[in-house]
């Protein structure tokens, strides 16, 4: 048994990553304990609520398939409504998971180890929610296979020049690679579950999933290389997916959409909203499962700093859009932006500005950055703001296009709202199932950042 250290400083900054004198075995006990303990009553309540929402989603999608997209609030100029807003919003949320698992891995940010597993899971579930919307917005979902280059009886192919088709490939690849990354990271931990399984059925299931992992260095050698490669290829993927999503807008000629700033602006916004969702979920998880020593205030403070940075990038993009509208001398562009801030959707615009630009400014102050209630509320407000950002982009530009005779005001119907609310049911159902059956924190990686894991740490010491 390794000697527990009282105060473990592993990062270069002298701030302990993992607190509370953890040992290898106490980390296993803590994390596996969450799924081995008796299912808490609150979990049943939560899954009950989530499943109810999931049924709302299934009902609204079912009615959509039966009746057609006419049940939504779409009208003549506004042909893209909540479906694309929700799609972009959910895909954006997914970005934090990949950023944490890939970019922070390459940058050797060891603090990621406490949050990467469930951030990756969050990515998968958010992208699952996102994929529903482009799937159903075609109305006749039984011909959704037109989106894929499958040889068919008409002998035609999808239009590979269309950003909407790029989306299919970018988001599909994103989901697949995120899943591979997540599963690769899970293999050693599935081995732990296999070795601790008490019942035969668990032994079989975890045994199959752990795929025969023996933890030998001959295996770790290829495993670590695979992880590095997955991180390397996911890094450009994080940046490309939302760039491609933004080209859905930027490639069109509509004022307010046709701008070159869209790809970086969308990526920053995606990371911003994704970290806000990671924050919301990790505050709840550490509270319920008592994970204060593994997800410490320092972790949360670092997330807040990233939200401050990306929030400022988003704020900068908002102002540059206005500057370019003025500087371009294009009257249509100028009208669109004046109309955004002061027109009939001004309420949505100012919700967006308050939530996305004003709220993160709180995190300039260390005290607020380390206050759980403040960051919890801020993270929820930021995600509301990010939803409104997409609403503002989609609806204001469409409802006031070039011809005033076309102008119309967009209002959602009950079905728009129920579909969106229902998508939370899918998200939380998947998330609750995940935290109940799989380790929500990577045991392997957290053990790896303990000072005892360094072969030069233990050699000089006596061990018990």
């Amino acid at each position: 048994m390794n000697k527990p250290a009282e105060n473990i400083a592993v990062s270069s900054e002298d701030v302990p990553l993992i607190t509370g004198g953890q040992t290898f075995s106490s980390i296993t006990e803590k994390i596996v304990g969450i799924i081995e303990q008796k299912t808490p009553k609150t979990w049943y309540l939560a899954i009950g609520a989530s499943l109810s929402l999931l049924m709302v989603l299934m009902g609204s999608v079912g009615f959509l398939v039966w009746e057609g997209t006419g049940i939504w609030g779409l009208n003549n100029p506004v042909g893209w409504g909540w479906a694309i807003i929700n799609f972009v919003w959910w895909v954006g949320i997914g970005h934090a998971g990949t950023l944490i698992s890939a970019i922070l891995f390459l940058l050797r940010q060891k603090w990621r180890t406490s949050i990467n597993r469930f951030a990756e899971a969050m990515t998968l579930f958010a992208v699952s929610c996102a994929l529903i919307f482009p799937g159903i917005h075609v109305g006749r979902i039984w011909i959704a296979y037109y989106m894929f280059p499958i040889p068919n009886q008409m002998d035609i192919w999808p239009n590979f020049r269309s950003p909407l088709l790029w989306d299919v490939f970018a988001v599909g690849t994103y989901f697949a690679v995120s899943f591979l990354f997540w599963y690769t990271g899970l293999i050693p931990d599935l081995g732990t579950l296999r070795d601790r399984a008490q019942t035969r059925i668990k032994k079989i299931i975890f045994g199959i999933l752990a795929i025969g992992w023996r933890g030998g260095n001959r295996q770790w050698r290829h495993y670590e290389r695979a992880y590095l490669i997955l991180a390397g290829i996911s890094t450009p993927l994080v940046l490309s997916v939302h760039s491609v999503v933004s080209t859905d807008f930027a490639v069109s000629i509509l004022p307010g959409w046709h701008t070159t700033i869209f790809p970086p602006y969308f990526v920053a916004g995606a990371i911003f909203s994704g970290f806000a969702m990671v924050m919301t979920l990790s505050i709840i998880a550490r509270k319920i499962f008592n994970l204060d020593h593994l997800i410490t205030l320092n972790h949360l403070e670092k997330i807040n700093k990233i939200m401050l940075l990306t929030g400022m990038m988003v704020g900068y993009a908002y102002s540059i859009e206005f500057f370019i509208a003025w500087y371009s001398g294009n009257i249509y562009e100028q009208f669109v932006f004046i109309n955004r801030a002061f027109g009939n959707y001004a309420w949505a615009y100012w919700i967006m500005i308050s939530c996305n630009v004003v709220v993160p400014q709180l995190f300039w102050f260390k005290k607020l950055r380390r206050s759980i209630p403040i960051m919890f509320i801020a993270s929820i407000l930021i995600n509301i703001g990010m939803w409104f950002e997409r609403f503002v982009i989609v609806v204001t530009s469409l409802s006031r296009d070039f011809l005033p005779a076309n102008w119309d005001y967009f209002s959602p119907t009950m079905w728009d709202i129920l579909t969106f609310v229902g998508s939370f049911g899918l998200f939380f159902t998947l998330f609750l199932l995940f935290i109940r059956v799989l380790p929500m924190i990577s045991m392997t990686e957290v053990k790896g950042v303990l000072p005892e894991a360094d072969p030069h740490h233990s050699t000089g010491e006596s061990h018990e």
Partner: protein
Amino acid sequence: MNNNSIKTVGIMAQFSNPGELMKAAEKLRDSGYSKFDCHSPFPIHGMDKAMGLSSSSLGWVVGLAAIIGTTGALGLQWWTSTIDYPLVISGKPLFSFQAYVPITFAVGVLLSGVAALIGMLALNGLPRWNHPVFNSDKFEKVTDDAFFISIEAEDPKFHTDETIQFFESIGGTNCELLQENQ
């Protein structure tokens, strides 16, 4: 137990921490053992060198998959838009490669990702659900907090008694024979 059919396929010993495990690996390497493996709950840095292993060749597998993915995707887009069903869209050239970059990139990444996982498993000889090390009761702690070295009987330097003695001399405890029914 039917003794005739049981064969010793290796020896395994336990070590107390990553540092001990690494020192033992260095001694095994220096004394000429080649078919041994160091089992730990997490990867240990510097262990490849201590065991005398070369670095992983997975990069070549993934590189090949990336080339197949990108050329395949670009080839599909080129063939469908210029040969199989040429269609002028927005007055653009039939092969306007700029528009084909996003899909080329995405498919390249997709195939690389798949190759990284499958290639890693293949190089590791996985999936393999049955292995002599799993016959040891203590071994189930390897995914928790225990460290082991196993030597295969196929190693040219392997000799049951001498290897056990050697393990004990370098700090190994709980030496046990790994056996398999033939």
